[in-house]
């Protein structure tokens, strides 16, 4: 672990190159429909990673894109698709017809994914739960196993701890050491970061350490747990980052409509991923009117709290 003042700030290209090799287990989309690190996922696709295991609760459109690009050999998630439109066609092609390659699906529920990461974050081999009892998920997911409570006679499910190799967590603001402020719905981001061997923080803003230090209760990911910090404005588009930009609903529908067939997906991914070398180029292609429409129209600032004495 480095000294406290060392900067961990690197480019997205470098962060993916150094910390997300082929074969990795990667947590993405920890905050569900919000703050999905699309920029990171697109860079992973551009760098041609293979045999990734994707971990997330409801993965939304990003997992579909990475599956379509052939980066993925296994998905451990509760839901894979397109929240605005339902189906994810790349996911379906991969599972139903092994296009572009066969993938293994380990079907979880939102709660069992959360508990698998919670167990790893807590440093124990499993978490007990009642969910999935009686379901076919319990029968078919080897990470869920039934047992009897040691303190009473109840039947319970043990959710095996899940330790991703790397978590990519989108946050609103961080300092160069990785001390991160995030707010809004947190999903499994905090346990996910603590469960993972490495943590890449993707921040809308890099701020002075004093800003972060002014509110330690908001520093849900302390810098000494962070491997790398990437400054990537609008890195979550088309998903939302509260306080920064809204969700581009139409973008999800457009992707859905344009990726029904394989060649349509290839056109889409060439246009929005392969042919845009960086997030900046992606935003340029998106165009200012569209990006501008998503920006905050009415600010709603939190009431301050006092850490004085």
């Amino acid at each position, binding site marked *: 672990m480095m000294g406290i003042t060392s900067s961990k700030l690197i480019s997205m290209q470098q962060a993916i190159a150094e910390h997300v090799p082929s074969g990795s287990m990667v947590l993405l989309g920890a905050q569900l*429909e919000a703050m999905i690190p699309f920029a990171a996922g697109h860079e992973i696709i551009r760098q041609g990673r293979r045999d990734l295991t994707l971990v997330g*609760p409801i993965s939304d459109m990003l997992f579909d894109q990475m599956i379509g690009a052939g980066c993925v050999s296994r998905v451990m998630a*509760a839901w894979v698709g397109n*929240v605005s439109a339902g189906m*994810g066609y790349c996911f379906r092609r991969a599972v*139903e017809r092994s296009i572009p390659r066969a993938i293994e699906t380990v079907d979880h529920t939102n709660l069992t994914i959360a508990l698998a990461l919670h167990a790893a974050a807590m440093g124990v081999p499993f978490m007990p739960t009642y969910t999935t*009892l009686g379901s076919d998920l319990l029968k078919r997911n080897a990470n869920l196993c039934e047992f009897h409570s040691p303190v009473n006679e109840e039947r319970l499910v043990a959710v095996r701890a899940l330790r991703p190799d790397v978590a990519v967590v989108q946050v609103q603001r961080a300092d160069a050491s990785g001390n991160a402020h995030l707010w809004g*719905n*947190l999903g499994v981001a905090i346990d996910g970061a603590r469960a993972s061997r490495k943590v890449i923080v993707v921040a809308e803003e890099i701020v002075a350490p004093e800003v972060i230090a002014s509110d330690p209760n908001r520093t849900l990911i302390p810098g000494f747990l962070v491997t790398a910090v990437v400054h990537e404005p609008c890195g979550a588009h088309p998903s*939302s980052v509260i306080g920064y930009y809204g969700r581009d609903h139409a973008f999800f529908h457009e992707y859905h409509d344009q990726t029904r067939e394989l060649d349509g997906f290839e056109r889409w991914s060439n246009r929005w991923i392969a042919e845009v070398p960086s997030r900046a180029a992606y935003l340029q292609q998106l165009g200012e009117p569209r990006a501008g429409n998503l920006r905050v129209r009415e600010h709603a600032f939190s009431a301050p709290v006092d850490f004085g004495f």
Partner: protein
Amino acid sequence: MTTGVQSGATASRFSRSDLMVVAAAREIHDGEMVFVGMRLPMIAFVVAKRTHAPGAVGLFENGVMRDTPASELLYTMSDPPNLLKASYCGDMLSVMSLLQQGRVNVGFLGAAEVDRFGNLNTTWGSRDAQPIRLPGSGGACDIASLSQRTVVLLEHTRQRLVSRVGHITSPGNGTGNGWRRGQGLPLRSGPSAVITTMGVLRFGEDGEAYLASVHPGVSVEDVLSNTGWTLKVAEDLAVTPEPDAAALAVIRELDPNRFWTKS
């Protein structure tokens, strides 16, 4: 298009979706904790809040809890309007733990398939005998396993109301009475209603679904011929009450372009 229904009392025009929304709203009692979900149930939650259940609290698995409706209609539960002025924003476990504690009174779900015992499938479908991979559980299995009452909304066709689901994503009454207890699921949990485009199904002592009410203008024969098993019919079969003006006003305000509630 709007399938207006003429009824004796009122001549108000409303869609099947309107009817389903209001039927869903009636499943929410004042002061209850509700796992809301999106689309029609989201609207139903707001209708309930604005009419008979002002004290209801909405829970969302992304980590949000609200005791006031969002200021705008939501496309996803994580949209900024659902976070602004929420009662709580935190992590998924903080909400799911209330569900697992048994505090959540009612949870709303959709499904690709529901069977005669209220089991749900959202993992595998089929078209022309070809398997179709569906998105999966999300939080559906958790809600069906742990909430006191589960309410399902779906289109009423033989393809979707089947005798036996091909895959139990979310457990209902399994194979009948006593099954849930045998599996170790909480005593106070299980399917309460299935609200379809044709009527409302409820569950008997034997754990099997029966037709409790038909929507106005729908015949029992229509319902039976569109159900994938021999559906039992309640002796005191009712007609699903029509939406009143107050409820319709809320729906129109939330969905002015009838994006969700057109048909």
